[in-house]
């Protein structure tokens, strides 16, 4: 078994915004471990990248941190957010923590909002619900935060099916901005987006971290995206943390074969595209 190491030891300690120790996720009935003894820590204003192949347990780890695992799965370990253990809180206390404390940017942008309501109604309802704002204040806040991620206020009149995946991802980031989330967990936010949209989403996330000092956990297949934003990286494989550390160290001198394979695959793909681009 691999004992997960917290990325960058300085992150573990009293200064950490979130500290997860020995997180395990298992199936209730079979007892099968899906995430095994993973630890991580993150400070305010920093970004932690979680990379790994499909099925390595990245999304489950994120949902365990949020206390939102699917039915039939159970998490154990300790998830300390600002000193409070998320896993031992009641559902009511966890709900109070979500949004303003820990926010989420979902992978499936096109299905992340209620298809029957305009984005304006949904975002302002969320702000009114969570921040106790009036209708006009919530609307103004929504317009302001959308502008921060490069979207115009017209988006509020649109239904989810009228926007692109990139726009929807940025709406989610704007929502986290509006809620003033202290930690955002972005689960593969650039998957299934075109290159331009990917770039815009990453810039929006960068805004979140730099301007608001929000901590960001970025889960991605895309090592380029992680390199762009994350200072620390955690590599998952088969539910285990196989490597962690500073991003530049992990990507430049990978120690584990899985990390080496991920880095090599990305390098090969880049070289192939560069080659085809050159001969075109």
């Amino acid at each position, binding site marked *: 078994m691999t004992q997960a190491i917290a990325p960058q030891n300085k992150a573990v300690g009293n200064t950490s915004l979130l500290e997860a120790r020995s997180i395990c996720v298992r199936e209730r009935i079979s007892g099968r471990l899906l995430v095994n003894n993973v630890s991580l820590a993150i400070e305010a204003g920093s970004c932690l990248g979680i990379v790994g192949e499909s099925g390595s347990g990245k999304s489950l780890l994120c949902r365990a941190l*949020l206390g*939102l695992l699917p039915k039939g799965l159970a998490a154990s370990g300790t998830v300390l957010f600002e000193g409070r253990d998320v896993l031992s809180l009641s559902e009511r206390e966890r*709900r*109070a*923590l*979500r*949004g*303003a404390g820990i*926010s*989420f940017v*979902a992978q*499936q942008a096109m*299905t*992340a*909002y*209620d*298809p*029957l309501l*305009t984005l304006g109604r949904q975002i302002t*309802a*969320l702000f009114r*619900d*969570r921040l106790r704002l009036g209708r006009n204040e919530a609307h103004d806040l929504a317009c302001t935060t959308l*502008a921060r*991620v*490069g*979207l*115009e*206020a*017209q*988006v509020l*009149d*649109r*239904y989810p*099916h*009228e*926007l*692109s*995946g*990139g*726009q929807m991802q940025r709406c*989610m980031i704007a*929502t986290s901005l509006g*809620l003033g989330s202290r930690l955002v967990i972005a689960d593969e936010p650039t998957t299934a987006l075109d290159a331009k949209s990917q*770039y*815009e989403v990453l*810039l*929006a996330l960068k*805004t979140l971290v730099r301007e608001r000092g929000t901590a960001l956990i970025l889960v991605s297949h895309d090592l380029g995206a992680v390199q762009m934003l994350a200072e620390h990286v955690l590599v998952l494989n088969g539910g285990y943390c196989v490597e962690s550390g500073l991003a530049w160290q992990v990507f430049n001198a990978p120690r584990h074969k899985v990390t080496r394979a991920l880095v090599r695959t990305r390098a090969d793909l880049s070289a192939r595209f560069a080659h085809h681009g050159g001969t075109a």
Partner: protein
Amino acid sequence: MYAFILRRLLCLVPLLLAISFLAFCLTAASPSDPAEVALRVNDITPTPEVIEKTRQELGLDRPFFERYLAWLGKALQGDLGTSFVTHRPVARELARALPSTLALACVATLVVLGVGIPCAIVCFVREGRLADILVRALIFLGAATPTFWAGLLFIWLFAVHLNLLPTGGLEGASSFILPACTLALPSLATYTRLLRAGMLATGQQDFVLYARAQGRSPLAILLQIVRNSLQSTLAALGMTLPKLLAGTFVVECIFAWPGLGRLCVTAIFNRDLPVIQAYVVLMGLFFVLFNLFMEVAGALVDPRLSGRGSAGRKGKGRPDKSRPDTSMEDRA
């Protein structure tokens, strides 16, 4: 939305024509000679001469299509023929019986929705627990009970034993309760199970997870789930409403309810062909209209079905990326 409704209304015209033609064919294909039937129900001995004379009076000596077109032309003006038995206009007979059946079906629908939706919500919220199991067991029991038996049990308990409600007839609001509950019982089970299944499926969708991850209140999330699960219920309601109208026969007989079901059954026993024909067309019309109504209601609930929204209004497909988007590159 108006274009959507107009398109659907135009589609109804050939469908209604087909229904009327089929109804006409069915009565024409009846093994009994309508002229002979008309004589027999009025206790007139059907001699060949009298039959021939009646055939001429009823226009039965004319070719089939000519008769159909004549009937259709009159029907469009509200004349559905004359009853063989009562010798009164069929339209007036139907108009007399329709309101009470319509009222009964509407009250039964309210019972279905008013009890079915809360039951489905209870089952969803308490999924797999005692309340869910109990509600589903009761509903299963209700669905498995034949309507006539349920009606008799209700009469025995609430009218005879407890003496709370009338045994039958249409005498005030209280006389609706037992027939409406009896009529609603089989549909109640269907709707509760349909909505429960829909809510469980919707509960797994990404937008529910996202709403929970942002800390939205459980009540707000529940409302989202219910609203998103109503599509299948609305579609089914389009079929159930006319089925409740057409299926009131047993209930009307048990509770001596003066409605369409009894009128139709009496017409069948008397072979009163004009009434049967008009009843079939009327029920076809109800099926078609209620389906349209529910389709419009579904489109009103779901903007994706009606092409609503600003992109939809401009006749564009999604995504409409250009306008609300300020390039982030300038902000980098």
